[in-house]
């Protein structure tokens, strides 16, 4: 972390090499966070690129004493997605392939081998509350710890654990419902 602190410090002072290194170390996590939110890998690639361009433009305003750098990046990504989703709101909801695997209580062995894809998770996550969706996105796609999610969302760790639990319960319910609807 000390290394990252140093990189961020240098990037804030205009060191392009340092910012490039931050790009390398954070790109994948931001990408996954965006995919799970919008459910489209191609658009997520473009959006992730834009997140870093925007971060570079405003790195001068980043205060190290405040939120961690990754939290700041996730915030930029979040704001960018709010704009994106607002523009895409008229688009019909994506329906998933009926033959895709779904959760089942009756066959634990089969469940253990369950393979979901990120698009399915993204669709199922739309049924969650905003806070639950954010926790799932940051925790799983963003790879943050509970403590980091708590800092990013400005909530207590206890609150994040409760949200994580309720989000997984809700996701499970949604994925199970897919067995009856033929879709997620």
């Amino acid at each position, binding site marked *: 972390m000390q290394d990252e602190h140093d990189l961020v410090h240098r990037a*804030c*002072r*205009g060191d*392009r*090499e340092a*910012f*490039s290194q931050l*790009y*390398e170390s954070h*790109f*994948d996590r931001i*990408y*996954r966070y965006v*995919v*799970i939110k919008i459910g489209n*890998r191609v658009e*997520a*690639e473009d959006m*992730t*690129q834009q997140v*870093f*361009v925007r971060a*570079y*433009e*405003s*790195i*001068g305003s980043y205060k190290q004493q405040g939120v961690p750098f990754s939290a700041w990046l996730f915030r930029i990504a979040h704001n960018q997605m709010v704009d994106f989703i607002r523009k895409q709101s008229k688009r019909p909801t994506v329906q998933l392939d009926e033959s895709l695997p779904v*959760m089942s*209580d009756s066959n*634990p062995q089969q*469940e*253990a081998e*369950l*393979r*979901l*894809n*990120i698009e*399915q*998770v993204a669709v199922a996550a739309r049924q969650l509350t905003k806070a639950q969706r954010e926790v*799932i996105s940051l925790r*799983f*796609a963003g790879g943050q*710890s*509970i403590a980091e999610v708590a800092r990013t969302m400005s909530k207590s760790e*206890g609150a994040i*654990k*409760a949200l*994580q*639990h*309720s989000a*997984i*319960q809700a*996701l*499970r319910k949604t*994925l199970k419902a897919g067995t009856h609807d033929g879709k997620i």
Partner: protein
Amino acid sequence: MEKSNKKLDIIFDECLDGMLTGQVTLEQCLKKYPDQAAELEPLLRTALSVNNAVAIQPSPEAKSRGRYQLQLKMAQAGKPRRSPIFGWQPRWAVAVMTVMLVFTLGGGTVLAADSSMPGSPLYPVKIATENVRVKLARSDVQKEAILATCADRRVAEIAHVVAKGNVDTQRLESVAARYISQVDRMSGMMTAGDQTVTVTGGMGMMTATATQPAAAPQPEATTPPALAATRKPADKTEKAQSQESTPPQATANQQDDEIEQLKVRIIAYGISHPGQIEKLLNDPKVPEQAKYALRRMLQDAREKYPQAIKNLENQQKSSGKNRGGD
């Protein structure tokens, strides 16, 4: 086995965290919390499925494209703005910066930096000096000439980096982005309708350079003509400095000459740069990831040089008409 009064969300997170970090297995967790096992198991399996589903990687091409876009942004925007106080720099401030640069580093350092290559400690000085020279250019023709010289240097630098082998993709992308930024700016100068080609002697960037095309990618041999002119002011520069006493017709002829010289140079670069970049694209020493940036360079070279030539020709026609009307 552990009897627990912990809330389920806390137990769930403890198990999940242990499983995600590979410290415990699902079975160990269920064994540890038998009272909650029935409730925990499906939730943990769901969480693991979600975790597996999101473990995707962006395509290397996307990451490379993003890296390139970022480098381009960096080249266009310069250093990120830290404070509005430093956001605006009047012309006199640029001049002061130049003097400070020379005094701080020493004129020798600035000259030595001129031949430095990417990765060298002096390379940032070279780029900073170029930026200052562009800012101090007194006419569009002069600015375009400096930008053309800088772009030619970038091609030579990439050729140098590739020739040395063990190519650093990021570094190459950074130079490529700077090339595109400079070629874009150059081709945007002298657009139709620009009637203000006020050529002055200035830093002598336009002198004695016109017939030198970009040579083969040998940076050592490529002494950027415009910048060489800065070090050794040529006769034409001195003439330009004394142009206040030159008759208007002579000044107009000098403008035409300078535009013509620039055009010849741009034509030469427009031919040599795509050829050199294509050669680099076929060089096995260039990593696949870096080729996206080179392809963008090639596309830019093919599109922007003809545009720049067209603009210069329009400018020539326009000044011819004006003179004809006088």
